[in-house]
């Protein structure tokens, strides 16, 4: 699609912002494990995946720039928390390693499905970019899945820890699929099939895996998605993260790097 009408541009921007913000914020969060990981090899792998996420966010901010938004650095480092569209799950502190791993599992499978859907998008520049991420995202889900498989079966303590983190994160994860104001336009214009489709596909991937590992989630009627993030409502954890992430940039925003 080379041409967007005004509504489609707004819809595309909303979509890009939420994906890019999710990746930037979770990428930053996961990078907080750098140097503190449970073993050297895992430390390197987790840090490298965090860098992948930040890289992906940069490309998506560049697309936003093409649609008339400020450049990637300005967008990433100068907005306040109310201007971020990430879901609340990604801004939560890293917690213990099991917590970060379960979040990584829930998030990266959703990212993989989202990118698969977007690979078919009529928004060609976006489709082109997400196709490039297939390898990275495949590795991320492979990593997350291998850990989930190991820890859910290793011993009682590891199983309990994974289950507890899953309990804590499930409703948070459902918040990834909070619908925006432009679902109809995105679908009609062939840009994106929408959060509902994404959520169903994600569930069809994630639920069988969890079941295989002997992990449980509550019955559907108890699911309460933690929404609000897409509309700029955030937890008290986001602003301190932004302060820390932007600390160097804000000392001299005009500096050439």
């Amino acid at each position: 699609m080379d041409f967007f009408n005004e509504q489609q541009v707004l819809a595309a921007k909303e979509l890009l912002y939420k994906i890019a913000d999710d990746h930037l914020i979770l990428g930053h969060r996961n990078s907080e494990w750098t140097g503190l990981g449970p073993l050297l090899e895992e430390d390197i792998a987790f840090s490298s995946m965090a860098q992948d996420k930040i890289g992906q966010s940069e490309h998506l901010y560049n697309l936003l720039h093409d649609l008339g938004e400020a450049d990637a650095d300005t967008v990433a480092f100068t907005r306040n928390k109310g201007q971020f569209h990430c879901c609340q799950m990604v801004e939560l502190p890293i917690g213990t390693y099991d917590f970060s791993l379960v979040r990584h599992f829930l998030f990266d499978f959703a990212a993989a499905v989202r990118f698969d859907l977007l690979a078919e998008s009529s928004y060609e520049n976006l489709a082109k970019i997400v196709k490039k991420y297939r390898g990275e995202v495949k590795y991320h889900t492979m990593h997350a899945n291998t850990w989930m498989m190991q820890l859910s079966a290793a011993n009682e303590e590891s199983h309990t820890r994974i289950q507890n983190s899953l309990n804590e994160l499930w409703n948070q994860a459902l918040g990834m699929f909070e619908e925006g104001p432009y679902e109809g336009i995105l679908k009609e214009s062939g840009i994106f099939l929408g959060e509902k489709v994404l959520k169903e596909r994600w569930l069809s991937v994630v639920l069988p895996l969890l079941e295989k590992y002997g992990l449980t989630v509550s019955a559907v009627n108890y699911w309460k998605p933690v929404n609000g993030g897409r509309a700029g409502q955030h937890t008290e954890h986001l602003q301190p993260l932004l302060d820390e992430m932007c600390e160097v940039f804000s000392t001299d925003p005009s500096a050439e790097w």
Partner: protein
Amino acid sequence: MIESLDPRITREEIDENSVFSDLKELDQFETYEVFHQKKRGQQHSHVGIVHAPNAEMALLYAKEQFARRGQTCNLWVVKTQHVFATDYDDSDIFETTEEKIYRDPGTYKVMDRIKAYKEKNNLS
């Protein structure tokens, strides 16, 4: 509380008098040898080792440690304990006497004959 330049450490609110016990010797996962293949059909080359609890995790780590940059199409991991090696004390078995250099292909002097044959038969 420990005040560090690294905000992540400060956030942990660690008591300054905390005692950290050192890791016990060998209190870590076993090692896997990593073999890297650049292109399909080429040989796998040994590139290093990773610590991992099992082969699946070893492959995950091998990818990040040894295939992050440059071209890769395949990786192998093999438990270090499954590698049989000669003893360094026996490295003299690889020595060869100079009188038998005819066994070294480098000593065959055939290139000039091959060249002459090619020229004669108009082969390049």
